């Protein structure tokens, strides 16, 4: 496990993230323009979705897909309840802030998922291609769980009818599922045609994107520090380090339980461990505007994302190998 962690820490991906984090903390003027960051995220989503679809076309589809999606959806519904309970016990966050944070930890971070696929490839594993569909299915249920938690604690309000459509059809889900279907339809022939675009540059683009993530995370941490650390208490920061291990452990057990391969179990653990910072924050701004965005964005992107990238991913790989006896 220590070898895995050391190799991961010295990978270009993690070092690029570290560079971004350091640059932001040292107040460098290094920036990635918004349009470039969005372009890179579109590229990564398209590439990962397409390659997942091609893998399904090559290996066929079995009952494992339905089981894995079912397990993923259950996890996404259940994790916010655990996260909310934990936050209420160890942090001083209000009900609304705790529920908003819980939604982030039940949903998934697609960039962490992309980084995890690179780790599985480096380990010589071939996870099930349909894990992309599992990732997409796990984006939304946590938001509904969080709104239920708020209502249960007497602070509920009617859910805007259009919000569910926005959540289910947000750009990242549409692109991920759309490119997955295109990859499935066109198969290995389709991959050969566009391989030069979506295979060769993939890791380089991921490195640049993680550089940007490091910059954004560093700015969030700096803003929290400049605010005297008032936004986040120690309990909340401890939560952001403990919850990924709980979610990752449950994800790994769920993955092994439905019979996924070692790579698939590792990806399921990563999905359980990661916290959203694209789809859920936008939904929370609409559904729970009184919740403080500095709290959930800093925890998700400033604490949990770096933790998963550096320590979490090798830990989930080790867990998957242990559970599957690989």
């Amino acid at each position: 496990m220590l070898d895995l962690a050391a190799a991961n820490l010295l990978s270009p991906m993690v070092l690029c993230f570290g560079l971004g984090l350091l640059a932001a903390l040292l107040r460098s003027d290094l920036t990635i323009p918004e349009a470039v960051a969005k372009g890179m995220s579109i590229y990564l989503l398209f590439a990962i979705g397409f390659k997942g679809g091609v893998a399904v076309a090559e290996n066929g589809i079995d009952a494992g897909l339905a089981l894995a999606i079912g397990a993923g959806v259950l996890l996404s519904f259940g994790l916010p309840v655990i996260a909310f309970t934990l936050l209420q016990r160890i942090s001083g966050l209000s009900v609304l802030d705790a529920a908003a944070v819980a939604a982030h930890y039940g949903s998934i971070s697609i960039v962490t998922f992309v980084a995890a696929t690179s780790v599985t490839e480096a380990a010589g594993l071939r996870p099930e291609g349909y894990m992309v569909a599992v990732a997409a299915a796990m984006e939304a249920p946590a938001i509904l769980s969080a709104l239920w938690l708020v209502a249960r604690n007497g602070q509920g309000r009617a859910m805007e009818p259009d919000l569910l459509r926005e959540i289910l059809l947000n750009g990242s889900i549409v692109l991920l599922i759309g490119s997955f279907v295109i990859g499935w339809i066109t198969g290995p022939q389709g991959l050969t045609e566009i391989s030069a675009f979506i295979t060769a540059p993939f890791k380089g683009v991921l490195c640049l994107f993680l550089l940007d993530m490091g910059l954004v995370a560093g700015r969030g941490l700096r803003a929290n520090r400049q605010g005297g650390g008032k936004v986040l208490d120690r309990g909340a920061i401890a939560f952001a380090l403990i919850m990924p291990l709980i979610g990752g452990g449950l994800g790994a057990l769920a993955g092994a339980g439905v019979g996924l391969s070692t790579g698939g179990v590792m990806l399921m653990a990563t999905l359980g461990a990661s916290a959203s910072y694209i789809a859920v924050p936008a939904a929370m701004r609409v559904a729970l505007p009184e919740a403080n965005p500095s709290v959930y964005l800093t925890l998700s992107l400033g604490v949990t994302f770096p933790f998963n990238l550096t320590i979490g991913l090798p830990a989930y790989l080790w867990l998957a190998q242990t559970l599957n006896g690989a």
Partner: protein
Amino acid sequence: MQMHPAKRVEITIEAVMERRLTEALAGAGVTGWTVLPVMGGSGRSGVWSREGQVGRAGGMVQVVCLIRPDRLDGLLDAAFAVVERHIGVVCITDCAVLRAERF
């Protein structure tokens, strides 16, 4: 040149609320507005910047309307119903326009 008094309403609001706001304005009979991107800023909710951001959650936009003074209250009622619970600023200034029939 003949000029006519008008009101310039600037509503700086979270990007995720843009569509809801413009739909509310249209529902109140407002026929024109301009949406401007906002690069960054600082306020009661802290410092923020669009640089490097991928999601829309951390971003703001500014919706600018020029309107006849007698229609201001209707616009503000519609806008306030949307922005009341959200981060943002509503600012009204006096201005003058050349072609009054367009407002």
